[in-house]
């Protein structure tokens, strides 16, 4: 019974997870997408590592039972890889769609957050916030973003 962990794998996993989560925090959709991909690799690798140390291929009559590797996590990881692959493709398509519709690939501001932030600002900076307040709702997302662009 092997109770030690593979240090190399632990470090690789730590790096993959931290890089993945760091990229998820970015504003650019493309970086978020890469973050999801890296995070997905991390999760799939973790599934592999969870099967214990590597061994021989699990083929009956060819290897001794105690030498074989645990095939189950590999099967799980394979399923998970297919799923993450499919979802990455979907996200890529969505990112492209967002780029076509909006013209850039930044994650847009939440309207509610925007309004709360505007309320907290001193009076002088309010002029674009008041326009939002009269008409609530998510429809004006694009407008408020354009306004924000203009302010820059």
């Amino acid at each position: 019974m092997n109770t030690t962990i593979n240090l190399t794998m632990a470090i690789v996993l730590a790096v993959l997870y931290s890089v993945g989560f760091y990229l998820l925090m970015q504003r650019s959709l493309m970086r978020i997408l890469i973050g999801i991909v890296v995070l997905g690799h991390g999760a799939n690798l973790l599934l592999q590592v969870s099967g214990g140390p590597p061994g021989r291929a699990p083929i009956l009559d060819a290897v001794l039972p105690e030498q074989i590797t645990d095939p189950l996590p590999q099967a799980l990881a394979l399923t998970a890889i297919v799923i993450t692959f499919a979802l990455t493709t979907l996200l890529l398509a969505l990112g492209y769609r967002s780029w076509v519709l909006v013209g850039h690939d930044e994650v847009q501001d939440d309207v509610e957050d925007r309004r709360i932030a505007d309320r907290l600002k001193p009076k002088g900076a309010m002029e674009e916030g008041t326009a939002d307040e009269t008409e609530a709702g998510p429809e004006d997302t694009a407008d408020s973003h354009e306004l924000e662009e203009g302010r820059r």
Partner: protein
Amino acid sequence: MTPLQAFVTLPVLLPMLGAATSVVVSRRASAQRVIGVVTLALVCVVAGVLLVSADANGPIVAELGGWPAPMGIVLVADRMSALLLLISTLVTLAVLVYAIDQRISDYGRETASTTFHPIFLLLSTGVSLAYLTGDLFTLFVAFEIMLASSYVLITRRTSASRIRSGMTYVIVSLTSSLLFLTAVGLVYAATGTVNLADLAGRMGALPEGLRAVLALVLIVVFGIKAAIVPLHFWLPDSYPNAPAPVTALFAGLLTKVGIYALLRTQTLIFPQDSPSTLLLVIAAVTMVVGALGAVAQDDLNRLLSFLLVSHIGFMVFGLALHTPDGIAGTGLYVVHHITVQATLFLVSGLITRRTGTVSISQMGGLAQQAPHLAVLFAVPAITLAGLPPTSGFVAKLALLQAGAGAGVPGELVAAVVVLASLLTLYAVARVWVRVFWGAPKEPLADDDPNDELVVGTARSARGMYVGAASLVGVSVVIALFAGPLSGVTARAGQDLHDRRGYTDAVLGPGAGTGPAATVSATGRPGDLDGELTVRTAGGDAGGPPGGGPVPAAAQPLEVGP
């Protein structure tokens, strides 16, 4: 496999086959409609049979491919899962009727779609699988089927103003899915199994700290899906922007599946004798934050979304008590809430079609213009607030009684339940006064005729009313038959708290909750090398979950997609 066991697989297989057939006939709109309605109606019948049988004779277990648990994948229909399956499918069916008629009145009778009907049925597949599965990894697959379908439904025909909320939803859900995958890996590394019943036995042998970490990871994962505060931020942002039937379906089902997964894993794998302080605090905060958020909203759909978040807290409260009564209360509340929340979003869709706006302050006098809409809104709104004699009152009473019987912490949170109910009543009363009373206002012109969100005409087909009204009928029936229903949920709560019925049914009598077999820290399952005879399709995605030896007979496996 007996016929009854084969029945357990039908709620998953039927919608999947229906989805495939729906793609094949994607040129014929009427055929797609028939397939959708017939499939879901059949699943309703199957779920009813399962519920009656599980209530009479205990859990029904189907071993897929003939592989025995814990090696193979099992589908389990016990009282709780069969009950939730039945009510979910009923709601899905009513939403489909509504959606079909909305599509007819918007796009014409002949317009077929290659995506809508198949994806709708696939979503139903994922929901059924999530309720029935007895295996943590299959639960992940079920969530993925469900969520992938929901990504498509929420971003279909999307416009520039709505793409942001769709992206938020997709990214948040994907992140939680990857965390779920991480949790599965950690659980397997710690115990060497992913079978829920097997986990129930093995988890007890783990050190306290490790168990707490695993429990916490799973709470976070399902918490994001169920939208408990502070993991709720994505929900009021994304749900309101989808078309009404899609929002109704998501609000009714997706969050409840998260609650069900939380309920199943917490009671089965991490049982407790005393109330869980963490979950009690989460429940109280969720109820209050959601209700206060709802009071502050002007957008009807956002208001309903915040109410949804608030009422998720009610369900977490019952679970947090970790008593049979509390779990039974949660079950009853889920049944009531699935129906009523879906109804409210459907009615909201009807209202916005009439007024052309989602802003409450721009509506008025609808009670004179459309009295039938007023009735359709009033009944579920009163039910949601939990006034007697509605189903909401029955469910809330069950929760309050469970809270009162669980010591001081339970009583404190029970007081929060009452407070949140009052805030809910205030929020829906505000909608009622602004929207249905006062001077009638002219409907606003639709500013964006291409989106599905706001049509801005009074042209609502009869089927939309039928869909919404039938759900109102379901919630009235729940109230009328509250006695027998609470009997079922009480027995279900007892089952979940006791665990033995479930583990015995899956693993065979006496096998489940006993002391764990050899569990290694690295997850080499059990070192059962002596009798290990392995013949498996190496690397095949359909390998049977559950550690340990694999039966010698190589049989075809059920493969996750």
